[in-house]
């Protein structure tokens, strides 16, 4: 009985809403698509929030639809690090995924400053056709610690603010949101019926027939003790030397971005009861480096830091570093990691005669957010026409650096990006042209200097320079 009434109500609202939207914007394409089923899984187990969105969309109008638009509230859009989309092809057993392009876009009548991303479909949808899309987007700095200051023996509680209803410019027929919490302890959560909380999962939904831009803010107050490692600034310098070595120097400014530590730090409690004291602090960081890495050093302003371990095998190397002291909320540490890599693993020749460096973008530290990442690729002297091919938008500029035996200076290609997460660790390429004859410049310079010096000595010794006989 209740169900039939709600079905009727749903049908009525559906009709009403369709009419209202038809009247509001006749030319807008937002009513071209209808989302049949939306399932959102929000993973809150680390301080980087990963959201997996599965959309089943249908084209309800005759014109073919070639893109799907995703909407984000402006507060979330500022913290958005990455949006990726894939299309599922094939049936259950033979499902495969094809990557789709996602680009930020603008819609003319965005209510309340909503930001949009548009996904380009492989094949435009015709009337009545459906498609299933998998979208992944990553939010950083979205867990706000509350209480903002904790003592050593308290565990860290954070707020997560989002909407129970998926914000979308389209009409959503059915939607569910699942939140995965790192522990079973959730202080409070807003109830938007139907809501269910069991174990580590908080379920909002299913909600039927919601109009576009429907938004229902919820706040979840949960416990999250994962290490909130944020690198405020990371400067990576990749120096290419054609004599066979790539030297990488990375300067880190690390901070613990969770609830600030107030009061006493008691070493005895930290050492004797590690599970109870300092639960939200972290001591170790893991850096994944390419295999065949050599001459690794780890130091800071004061000197060498001796607490690190390097384990390498033929596929990857792992550098486990410990800052000088464990990091509690609000504590900072700065350090420099440097290492060398063999040139033949990274420098290749492209079909059109240019050389290119194939290197991985991003920060090698696991599970860290980088607020500002700068990669400087220092090309050898005599390189021309540098250009970079990066799979996501970065700021590029050129600089010059003077190093050993440089006459004209080395070209430096600077790439900058804000809000970098581990999913950004993808290869990128830097192309440049280089005439092999320039390799002779340095040895010739050194040889000629010594030659001239010896000639001068010979001339001085063999000539009689005395003033008087």
């Amino acid at each position, binding site marked *: 009985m209740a169900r039939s009434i709600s079905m009727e109500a749903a049908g009525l609202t559906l009709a009403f809403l369709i009419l209202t939207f038809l009247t509001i914007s006749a030319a807008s394409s937002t009513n071209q698509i209808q989302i049949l089923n939306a399932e959102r899984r929000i993973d809150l187990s680390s301080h980087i929030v990963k959201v997996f969105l599965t959309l089943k969309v249908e084209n309800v109008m005759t014109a073919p639809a070639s893109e799907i638009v995703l909407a984000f509230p402006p507060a979330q859009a500022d913290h958005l690090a990455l949006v990726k989309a894939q299309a599922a092809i094939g049936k259950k057993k033979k499902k495969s995924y094809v990557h789709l392009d996602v680009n930020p876009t603008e819609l003319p009548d965005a209510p309340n400053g909503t930001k949009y991303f548009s996904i380009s479909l492989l094949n435009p949808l015709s009337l009545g056709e459906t498609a299933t899309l998998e979208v992944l987007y990553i939010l950083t700095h979205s867990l706000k610690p509350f209480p903002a200051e904790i003592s050593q023996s308290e565990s860290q509680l954070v707020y997560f603010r989002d909407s129970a209803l998926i914000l979308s410019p389209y009409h959503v027929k059915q939607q569910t949101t699942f939140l995965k919490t790192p522990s079973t302890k959730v202080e409070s959560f807003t109830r938007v019926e139907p809501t269910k909380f069991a174990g580590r999962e908080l379920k909002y939904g299913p909600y039927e027939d919601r109009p576009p831009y429907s938004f229902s803010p919820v706040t979840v107050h949960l416990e999250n003790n994962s290490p909130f490692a944020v690198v405020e600034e990371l400067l990576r310098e990749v120096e290419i030397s054609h004599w066979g070595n790539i030297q990488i120097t990375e300067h880190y400014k690390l901070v613990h971005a969770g609830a600030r530590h107030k*009061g*006493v*730090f*008691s*070493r*005895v*409690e930290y*050492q*004797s009861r590690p599970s109870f004291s300092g639960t939200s602090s972290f001591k170790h960081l893991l850096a994944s480096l390419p295999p065949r890495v050599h001459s690794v050093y780890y130091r*800071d*302003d*004061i*000197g060498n*830091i*001796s*607490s690190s371990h390097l384990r390498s095998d033929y596929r990857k190397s792992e550098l486990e570093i410990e800052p*000088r*002291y464990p990091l509690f909320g*609000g*504590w*900072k*540490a*700065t350090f420099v990691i440097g290492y060398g890599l063999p040139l033949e693993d990274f420098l290749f020749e492209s079909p059109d005669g240019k050389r290119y460096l194939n290197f991985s973008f991003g920060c090698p530290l696991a599970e860290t957010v980088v607020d500002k990442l700068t990669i400087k690729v220092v090309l050898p002297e005599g390189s021309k026409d540098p250009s970079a091919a990066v799979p996501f938008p970065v700021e590029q500029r050129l600089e010059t650096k003077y190093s050993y035996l440089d006459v004209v200076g080395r070209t430096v290609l600077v790439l900058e990006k804000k809000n970098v997460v581990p999913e950004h660790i993808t290869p990128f390429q830097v192309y440049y042209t280089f005439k092999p004859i320039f390799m002779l410049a340095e040895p010739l310079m050194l040889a000629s200097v010594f030659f001239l010096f010896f000639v001068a000595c010979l001339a001085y010794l063999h000539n009689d320079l005395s003033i008087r006989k």
Partner: protein
Amino acid sequence: MHVLLCIVTGRYSSRLYIAYAPLVVLGTLLAALVPVVGFNAVMTSEHFASFLVFIIIHVVALVYHVKGNLSPRMFKVAVTLVVSVGLVVCCAMIAVLIALVASSPTKGWSGRSLSLLDPTYASKYIPIIASVSEHQPPTWPSYFMDINVLAFLVPAGIIACFLPLSDASSFVVLYIVTAVYFSGVMVRLMLVFAPAACIMSGIALSEAFNVLTRSIKFQLPGSSGISQSGDTSMNTEGEQNDIAKTEKMDETAKERPSKKNKRKEKEPVVKASIRSRIERRLLVLPLEASVIAIILLVLLGAFYVVHCVWAAAEAYSAPSIVLTTYSREGGLHVFDDFREAYAWLSHNTEVDDKVASWWDYGYQTTAMANRTVIVDNNTWNNTHIATVGTAMSSPEKAAWEIFNSLDVKYVLVVFGGLVGYPSDDINKFLWMVRIGGGVFPHIKEPDYLRDGQYRIDSQATPTMLNCLMYKLSYYRFVETDGKAFDRVRQTEIGKKYFKLTHFEEVFTTHHWMVRIYKLKPPKNRIRGKTKKSKSKASSTSSPKRSGTGKRNPWH
């Protein structure tokens, strides 16, 4: 001093003037350029002796110059005239000078140099000079450690210097005698003694090699052997003695007695030759003996080099900021606590925060932690250091007041009790008491000693158990092993359970070697009796009690 000696013994020459006069002028000018010394180079009494000699040498040079120009009779007249006038002027000047010098309490000498003349001066009046470990007199083993084999060669060299006593050798003898005296007062001055010892032993070794190589040269088959015939008498005498000596040498394989005896044998021979001046009789030793002697001398030199390299590597190269030990399995364990504390300070405190610690760590804190310190290794302000020492020796509330008046935010204490690091602040604490007590008389050293002994266990005095240094070092130390056993002092501590009322612990390093505390801000309201001014009945609302009284250890 050497110049005076030369003038007195009638060995004045223009060489002496050229060597000494520019030295004094240049040396004083250069010393005045050093910012710390400044005008002290001409104003303090320590330098007056060299100026006096400067004046004397000018007078003597003038006298000789005049003597060369005038005839003897005129010279006598001039001398009497000058002497009478000059004497009057000199007396006047000296009177003025003595009055000036005598008016200052230390007669114009600074504390550091006075402690050289009177080694007990520092411990009586200026404890901070006495507290520096390099200002203590050296022990006999430290002489051997520093100059090793030279300890035997220096006396031989002194005697070698006397044999033809010239200007140069008398200078060296005077140098070494004064250097020995001063290095006996302060270990630090071993640096001054070392070059003198090297010169002396160089002289000794060169004389020894002279004799030995000459012996070999003259006795090699086919060489001319000029003095062979003339020396036969000497030879036999030398041979008899040296056969006995070589036996001794083979037995003990020691150079010293044989060399000394050789020396003694050589002396009468050489003196005879100098006196006679007819035949130069040079000592020639048997061939085998000289060959063995040369080999043994070279071996001695080799051992000396090995020892020096070892001493430089082990004893003088320890940086003492990173300590390493080897674990039982042979792995290296690094104690990097100092740098950990400084890195924490530099990253997690505000830029203007001031850190109070003992002066040993001042330069390190300034350089590595980049924070302002109250006292550092320069130790130029004794009263300031005494203030910090007094604060460390006072109970918590008084210490908090002192530190608050200095605008201190953090207090740094070095504690070695958990790992057994012996140079920590509790071991240096008595010096803090002495230095503080030198300026603030309410800190008395006997208050901290039980029967003249410095203890921190249950027999320690209440003043010791309540002072800030004790509390900051041992705060919650009992929770590490349940018994609070201090590995450096090898005893359990006296007061195990106590709370801090005016300080809070903000950081302790991994091995507990550096502990950093923050001053708590003063309370807004003071409840309770405010009329009482006795510090014992504390008027603050803190529930603090001293160690005795309540049963519950946490109150």
